[in-house]
């Protein structure tokens, strides 16, 4: 008998597993894929747009939630978790991974350049992104401010970092301080392996884990960088070796920052690696490459979780279950060809916005992505028809929750962490209750 089975190894599942383990529980983490961290940008978003750009996410949360409430539909996850859970979750993650991997302040958003040259708000970011930080507070300029000279350096072999597009758009953007950047694009060649012409960011990052290749890269870069310029590079500056970025920066002797790429995203993978190592070290039992296929329920409780392991089903008796499998992007929510919504593995009832789920406007939001599981404040999954729990010990957190437009709001990591905290708190309390029985 395990205390908890956590399903899903994204940010939610990893952080929750460690949190529960540290509370003294026996935790099994079951996951099929490699988790959602590598899909995203590798920073910690709390709330970036409401839809105006947000400078102080926690201060602006109440207004955001009031507007969400007026709009109707399933409650926003932040309305369920409350703001303290956000602070707690972001704080816990920061402690886990340390300032080598995440810096910044949960109360204050900054803007960071994206791989098409937009300025994207986020709360916590990796130290390798700090030289690209644009402050949203005109009174306190960030590393990049009016008049700064930036050279965006593309790598010929890497097609997902369009340097001219990024440089051109950055130069065309008004900064919060009213000024603009002075940018240019440059191009270098740096094949990841041999003479290959089509390298992924991941393979270049692996190459840059090698100190010899780092020095080579620094030499190639220095040929195109002019004194006084800040260098913008794709986020490929090492994945395993934490010394990669500081060494490169020192060798180049100039301000230098990384811009996240489309998946597979190296910054997210760094967080994934770090959290997975911690989970293993703290003896979370991890069952990889295995899909949840069902549960056994007794009365109003889940008694065991069924997992497809190699060649047979494994039944794992558990006192509580935390579902953290992600949303539509992970296949954890499904819309079939008859336009019927479902949670396909356990057939849990799905909360949905009223009206059409998908509309003809590319620019507008698609209500479909607000669909998901509804929960109470303990993150226990509710049946939206009755308002009652589906099973008293079945919790959900992260991307499977109803009520958010994570990509538009820039709220995904904050929701993951806050809901993980609430779920952990409830699971720990329940397990302690049982221990006293």
């Amino acid at each position: 008998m395990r205390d908890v089975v956590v399903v899903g190894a994204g940010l939610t599942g990893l952080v929750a597993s460690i949190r529960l383990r540290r509370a003294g529980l026996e935790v099994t983490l079951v996951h099929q894929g490699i988790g959602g961290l590598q899909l995203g940008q590798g920073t910690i978003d709390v709330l970036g747009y409401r839809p105006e750009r947000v400078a102080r996410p926690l201060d602006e949360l109440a207004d955001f939630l009031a507007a969400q409430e007026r709009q109707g539909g399933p409650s926003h996850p932040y309305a369920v978790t409350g703001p303290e859970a956000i602070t707690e979750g972001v704080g816990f993650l920061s402690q886990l991974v340390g300032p080598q991997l995440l810096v910044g302040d949960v109360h204050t958003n900054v803007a960071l350049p994206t791989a098409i040259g937009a300025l994207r708000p986020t709360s916590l970011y990796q130290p390798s992104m700090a030289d690209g930080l644009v402050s949203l507070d005109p009174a306190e300029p960030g590393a990049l401010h009016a008049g700064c000279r930036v050279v965006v350096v593309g790598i010929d072999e890497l097609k997902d970092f369009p340097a001219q597009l990024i440089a051109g758009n950055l130069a065309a953007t008004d900064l919060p301080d009213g000024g603009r950047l002075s940018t240019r694009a440059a191009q270098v060649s740096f094949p990841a392996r041999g003479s290959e012409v089509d390298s992924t960011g991941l393979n270049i990052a692996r190459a840059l884990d090698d100190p010899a290749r780092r020095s080579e890269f620094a030499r190639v870069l220095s040929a195109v960088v002019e004194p006084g310029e800040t260098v913008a590079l794709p986020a490929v500056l090492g994945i395993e070796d934490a010394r990669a970025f500081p060494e490169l920066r020192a060798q180049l002797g100039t301000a230098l920052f990384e811009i996240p790429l489309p998946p597979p995203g190296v910054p997210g993978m760094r967080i994934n690696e770090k959290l997975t190592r911690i989970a293993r070290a703290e003896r979370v039992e991890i069952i990889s490459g295995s899909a949840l296929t069902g549960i056994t329920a007794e009365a109003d409780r889940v008694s065991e979780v069924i997992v497809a392991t190699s060649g047979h089903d494994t039944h794992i008796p558990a006192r509580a279950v935390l579902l953290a499998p992600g949303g539509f992007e992970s296949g954890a929510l499904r819309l079939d060809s008859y336009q019927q919504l479902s949670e396909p593995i356990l057939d849990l009832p799905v909360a949905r916005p009223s009206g059409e789920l998908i509309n003809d406007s590319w620019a507008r939001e698609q209500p479909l992505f607000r669909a998901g599981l509804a929960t109470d404040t303990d993150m226990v999954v509710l049946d939206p028809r009755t308002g009652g729990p589906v099973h008293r010990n079945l919790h959900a957190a992260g991307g499977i929750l109803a009520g958010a437009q994570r990509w538009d709001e820039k709220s995904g990591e904050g929701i993951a962490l806050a809901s993980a905290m609430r779920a952990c708190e409830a699971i720990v309390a329940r397990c302690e209750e049982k221990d006293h029985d």
Partner: protein
Amino acid sequence: MYQGVTMADFSVDVVVVGGGATGVGVARDAAMRGLDVVLLERADLAQGTTGRYHGLLHSGGRYVVSDPESARECAQENAIVTRIHADAVEQTGGLFVVTPEDSEDYADGFLAAAHAATVPAEEISVSQALAREPRLNPGIKRAFAVFDGTVDGWQMVWGAAESAREHGATILSYHRLTRIHRENGRVVGVSCHDVKNDRELSIDCRFVINAAGAWAGQVAAMAGCHDVQVVPGRGIMIAMNHRLVNTVVNRCIRPADGDILVPVHTVSIIGTTDVKAPDPDRLAIPRAEVQQMLDAGEALVPGFREARAVHAWSGARPLVKDTRVAAGDTRHMSRGMAVIDHRERDGLAGLFSISGGKLTTYRLMAQRIVDEMCAQMGEQRACTTADEAVPAAVGSPTYRVTHRLAEREQAWQRDQIVCECELMSRSAFVDLLAAEPLATLDDLRRRLRIGMGPCQGGFCSTRAAGLLCSQGQTDAPTATIELREFLKHRWIGLWPILAGAQVRQNALDEWIARGTLDIDHAPGQADPPERFPIGAPRHDGQPAGSEQKAEVA
């Protein structure tokens, strides 16, 4: 009023209006006969009906019972098109199958009818059919093999256009006809607007061939010939992300909705419906018809609904309803084709309106109409379009879906892949961009298939926008607007069919574009209007040209 003394930009024998298969076929035919030709297309070549069909190159089997003459024409033209457009045609072969839902009455007469129409066909056993197409409904009762093929409408039209150019024709896409000039009961010239360069052109000519298809009535009206009624017959098609079959599969019934599944490139396409539409520039993709197509797919391939629909589009068949059509004159005209000689109908010499017909017989239709025009000119000029392959097809084997893979195996150490789904290389994109510096991303897509695979542009569109910048075609904010316009156009054909694994894909695409890249807050308009709108403005004040852009996946 047209002034005959004004210097025209061109002075030619024939102006062809419409850059679909018919118009380009007429331009090629006339140019090959030594006539001076200008073709005007208001948008991109084959952006209308030709680019919005299922890709079938008819064997004739579809018509052996209902219209044997049409069947015979198809069989003959199939062989010719396969020869002269080898690069655009895949010789897939076809099957006519009787599904468990169908009666065998039609099938009983099928072979005899095929024989009478000289369309090659043979009956094969159900087990042979299933061996050939393992996903076919195992409950099928009978199967007939025919020589159906598939043809890429864009590739074919661009091939014919290139051939026409070689023979001296001037092909002007994004040139909208604005006026047809007449003097003393004759057409004497046209005016047009060069959309991308925003300027006017005038062209003197002896003949105008109106090959505007579903839009032919609008064009005829510009010459003062009113009430040419062309009713668009709207049909939807859905592309599934795999070749569920490698052979064209027809239901062996009288032609009906949802009776064909066509493997084209990397996808298979189920079609189609037929509903009268008020405006060919506004073609809907109704959900009810999507459901009807998915059910039709189930009848042919069980589990069809679990396969992944990647894109849908709507095309407009032109149905000419005009009592004054020289309808009896079928000796000279191709079946299904309507020709109006406006000399007889309206007392205006030098204008023909041509509409209808089938893509398979586009060459024959062009031959017939140019024959008629030459007769009116009093000149003897022989048609040679069947004898000479278009430039892209010279020395080319017929298309196979593995072509790009073979090219990739040669080039993988030299060239990047920009679009993984369609194996489109960086050099293919950069070379075409250099040749067509005014091309939009959608123009490039129609030629290269970028963004047409399962991810629908999720990964490649940003790379393509980056290349627009790095190749010096445009600045970053404009490239960003182009990127949004491209994704917006993809969405037209996505949202009506979004389900299953394609929802998962779309969630990832949204995560990348809006989440990671924050495309909504990059420079340039967040929801850009159509740069090259088509058709009349919409009643809600929005520019036209969104609905009608739904086209082949």
